[in-house]
């Protein structure tokens, strides 16, 4: 299956109640697949093509506020349009799933793959102090797996979850194993699981209000303090990463998504040259595997980050490492995917020989 299609199918199987989207390359297959699959007949899931990304993310807000499992997908320019809604969703503490199949920017940019939305995804993007949980798949299998995991984390923390993919993983075809269909939650289950949801005020409870507004500064500060506590808890509990050939590594590559795939190949090439290279692949970009990188920094000689951007994640790696070892960035931009050979050359030039 294609990455985008695997994500769509996995979302149906994860018991999604609604998808709201707007077409944009390279992720239009998500909605196309959903429409062709008629999930309203399969599971009762609602699929709606909105008039804009702005409307789509606000439909997600409305659905999430009812305790429903709702999602949207887009690519970079469309995700920029969704930032207002994402800020409101984070402020109102609503669970939802957002897929960004990243393409090169800025502006209309290119339709080719990129990783230049790292800052936007992990550091806010919209206004205010908020964080999304950001999952970075590096395979079609993970595109599928992270639909279910994304919903699970979103509801566990009442927080938006972003699956930060890229045009390469969205478009590539790989074998994938899908979860069994899980039933959508019934209204009774929703009222039990999400008692805060706007399901209609019954006599036995106070009215439920979903809002991100606090005109009282003291209350708004307290709300922010509570949000920060939640984000800290997420950092403690949900950090995920993969270590490849790191046991004896002297030189470390840090890369996620498509960059991690080609960096794994670069590690093999370096090992063939007798260089003990390893790869740390962040699976969650927020929370970032700061501690794992910090531990490795004590025993490697240098670290290269590989990103399809001008170097964004490298800032978080540098924060984790401090000045203990050299940290450099290598990347290509504008929709170009670097080759493993280029990564090997960069390791020699910037770290080993640098």
């Amino acid at each position, binding site marked *: 299956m294609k990455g985008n299609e695997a994500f769509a199918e996995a979302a149906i199987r994860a018991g999604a109640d609604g998808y709201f989207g707007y077409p944009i390359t390279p992720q239009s297959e998500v909605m196309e697949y959903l429409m062709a699959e008629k999930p309203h007949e399969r599971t009762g899931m609602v699929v709606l093509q*909105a008039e804009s990304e*702005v*409307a789509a993310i606000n439909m997600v*807000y409305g659905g999430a*506020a009812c305790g429903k499992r709702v999602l949207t997908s887009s690519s970079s320019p469309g995700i920029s349009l969704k930032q207002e809604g994402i800020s409101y969703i984070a402020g109102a503490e609503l669970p939802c799933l957002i897929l960004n199949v990243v393409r090169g920017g800025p502006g209309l940019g290119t339709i080719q793959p990129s990783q230049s939305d790292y800052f936007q995804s992990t550091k806010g993007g919209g206004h205010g102090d908020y964080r999304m949980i950001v999952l970075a798949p590096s395979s079609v299998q993970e595109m599928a797996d992270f639909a279910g995991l994304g919903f699970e984390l979103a509801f566990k923390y009442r927080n938006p979850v972003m699956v930060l993919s890229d045009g390469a993983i969205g478009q590539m075809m790989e074998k994938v194993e899908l979860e069994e269909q899980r039933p959508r939650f019934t209204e009774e289950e929703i009222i039990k699981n999400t008692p805060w949801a706007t*399901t*209609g005020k019954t006599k036995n409870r106070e009215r439920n209000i979903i809002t991100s507004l606090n005109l009282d500064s003291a209350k708004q500060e307290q709300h922010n303090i509570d949000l920060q506590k939640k984000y800290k808890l997420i950092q403690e509990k949900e950090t995920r990463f993969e270590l490849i050939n790191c046991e004896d590594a002297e030189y470390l590559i840090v890369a996620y998504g498509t960059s991690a795939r080609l960096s794994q190949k670069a590690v093999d090439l370096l090992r063939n040259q007798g260089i003990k290279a390893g790869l740390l692949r962040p699976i969650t970009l927020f929370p970032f595997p700061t501690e794992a990188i910090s531990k490795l920094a004590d025993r490697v000689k240098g670290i290269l980050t590989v990103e399809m951007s001008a170097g964004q994640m490298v800032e978080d790696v540098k924060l984790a490492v401090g000045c203990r070892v050299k940290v450099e960035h290598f990347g290509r931009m504008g929709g170009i995917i670097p080759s493993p050979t280029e990564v090997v050359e960069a390791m020699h030039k910037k770290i080993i020989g640098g």
Partner: protein
Amino acid sequence: MANITKEEIRKPENLVYKKTDLLTDKALSYCPGCGHGTTHRIIMEVLEEMDIQDKTIGIAPVGCSVLAYDFMNIDMQQAAHGRAPALATAIKRLMPEKFVFTYQGDGDLAAIGTAETIHACNRGENIVIIFINNGIYGMTGGQMAPTTLPGMKSSTSPYGRDTHLMGNPLKMTELVAQLPGTIYVTRQSVHTPSNVRKTKKAIRKAFENQKLNKGVSFVEVVSNCNSGWKMTPVQSNKWMEENMFPFYPLGDIKVNTD
């Protein structure tokens, strides 16, 4: 009257009107004489009379009525500026058995949220849209709205709205009446007892229409903004009759509920 005391009249069995319990006891944040309060109250009276408090979800976006959830004792969502019809679309599609309404001002519905409004109406979402049109941005201090009348003064049209420079007022209600997705489109007001009664009937009809599952019911309430217009409440109601109603005539524009 001579033979009866006030105490004898003020007995529970003689009670003919009191504020509905579907409004909270919190004092309304609106300016004295503002039509928002009256409209809030009659919506809540309709929900009480239809006994659908437990099935209704309201949405108030940004504007003077952003705090509507403080006053309406029902489940409510606060939306980003202009986006209420998008929220309502999702809520109604995901929970078709519920009653869903948006409560939007003119800046919200006819400027920043034009796209969401028109597309929700065009898709024929089975929702109620209540549109408060007072021809001005009240919350931010009286700036020109999309519905500000030609020549009308506001803080951003201090010499009056010059239609050559600032464009013409937008008649959203006539516009959405053209769309196949709307089944009931009406324009009312709440400044006199008889108008309040008519508007309440219109709102009742709009909510009843949701049972038909045929499309949007759209109720515009032409209202005053005495603070923004810089008049007393009673003066503003008179000014509204003389100036707003000729441009925004009251009455049903579309009734397609059979």
